């Protein structure tokens, strides 16, 4: 894929060229939205919004990392959705225990798949990590998703999250510390190496 040529054509209104870029990046964009929002439908909507917005403003792209620029549009779409959710909060249908108390972390406890046992563990681990990601403030979550899940360097994260480099370093450090604390409560789901590390620290 000749990315610069496709970007050039898209900047001149070639929708086919832009759609080839969409096909190349749609998984990255969707995964970023999914990890920030934690909801598949909302993530799909945010991704679509991001691509529409990207096409309309592609003339403002002045070079550099196109992926970072694209992830910036999806990050903005996710922030819009999070703000909307904050303005109009919804009450989830939480499952209750026998004592009429809400089940802790129903998202990760709920086994949405009917897969075999070995697959279920991976799904539960995914839910556990997603739960910990959602416990982070949105700014921290965005930075950690872009750095550790999308593999962007600090300069690209700075472009995508629209924050200075120094802030990224600070947010990333805080986010990783908080994630560490959160993941400790799901020790039984974590890989063996992680558990061994925990045990050696406690002894």
């Amino acid at each position, binding site marked *: 894929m000749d990315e610069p040529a496709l970007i050039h054509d898209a900047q001149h209104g070639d929708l086919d060229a832009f759609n080839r870029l969409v096909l190349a990046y749609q998984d990255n964009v969707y*995964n970023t939205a999914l990890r920030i929002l934690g909801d*598949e439908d909302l993530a799909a909507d945010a991704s679509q919004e991001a691509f529409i917005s990207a096409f309309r403003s592609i003339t403002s792209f002045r070079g550099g990392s196109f992926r970072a620029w694209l992830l910036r549009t999806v990050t903005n779409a996710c922030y819009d959705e999070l703000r909307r959710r904050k303005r109009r909060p919804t009450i989830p249908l939480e499952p209750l225990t026998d004592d009429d108390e809400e089940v802790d972390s129903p998202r990760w406890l709920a086994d949405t798949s009917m897969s075999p046992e070995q697959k279920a563990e991976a799904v539960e681990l995914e839910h556990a990590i997603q739960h910990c990601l959602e416990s982070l403030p949105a700014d921290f979550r965005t930075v950690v998703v872009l750095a550790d899940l999308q593999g962007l360097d600090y300069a690209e994260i700075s472009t995508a999250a629209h924050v200075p480099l120094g802030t990224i370093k600070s947010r990333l*450090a805080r986010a*990783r510390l908080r994630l560490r604390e959160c*993941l400790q409560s799901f020790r039984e789901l974590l*890989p063996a*190496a992680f558990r061994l590390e925990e045990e050696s620290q406690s002894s």
Partner: protein
Amino acid sequence: MTQPSFRDVETLTAYLDGQLDSTHHQRLESRLGSEPELKATLDALIESRSVLHRLPQRRAPRNFMLTPKMAGIKPPLPRAYPILRFASAFAGFLFLFVYAANFLPQMSLPLGAAAPAMELQSAAPAQDSMRNQAGGSCDTCTSEATIVAAAPLAPSAKAAPTEQPTFEPTIAVETQTQPAESYGSTSSTLERRPFNLPALSLVELAVLGVAILAGLAALYIRVRTERAFAKKNKTE
């Protein structure tokens, strides 16, 4: 042993991501050799990151490719269309032109001329009826009209010596004498009007027809082009 400060954690994070310059990198590595707490924190950060890397990359649930409608792309219009696009502006301009042609000449007339014209219109049928009553004789018409116009003068002339002037007779004299005096000056206005109005109406009708036709043509071309564009995209 002391717990690493937040600044140390920041440095460790940058070290982990390969964002430290060579000087800081070497300094941190020497510290890691001598400070087990710092090393433990680094290991914890590495493990956290490796857990995050275990998150599977999901495939997009659908294609997010844009359609021309989503992208807000409009169909290319025929070359003749730009001329027709100005149909509404053209109609607006013509409306102003017709409006000006209708009302500006009336506004430019002297104020005194408009009132007699109206009075004359009401006076003319009266004169016609008088002519009919007189049996169509033209000589008697003029003399009777003069008598009728002069008749109201008699009471006011009689009233003057007795010094009992009333407001009503005076007004009656003025209003009744004026048409007779100004008759000659307004007759020309009456003659011109029947010629101006029909000519202006024809121009108005022609302009209206052109504007409506241009607007309909623009609408037809737009609808037809958009349908063809939508059909083409559907087949593709």
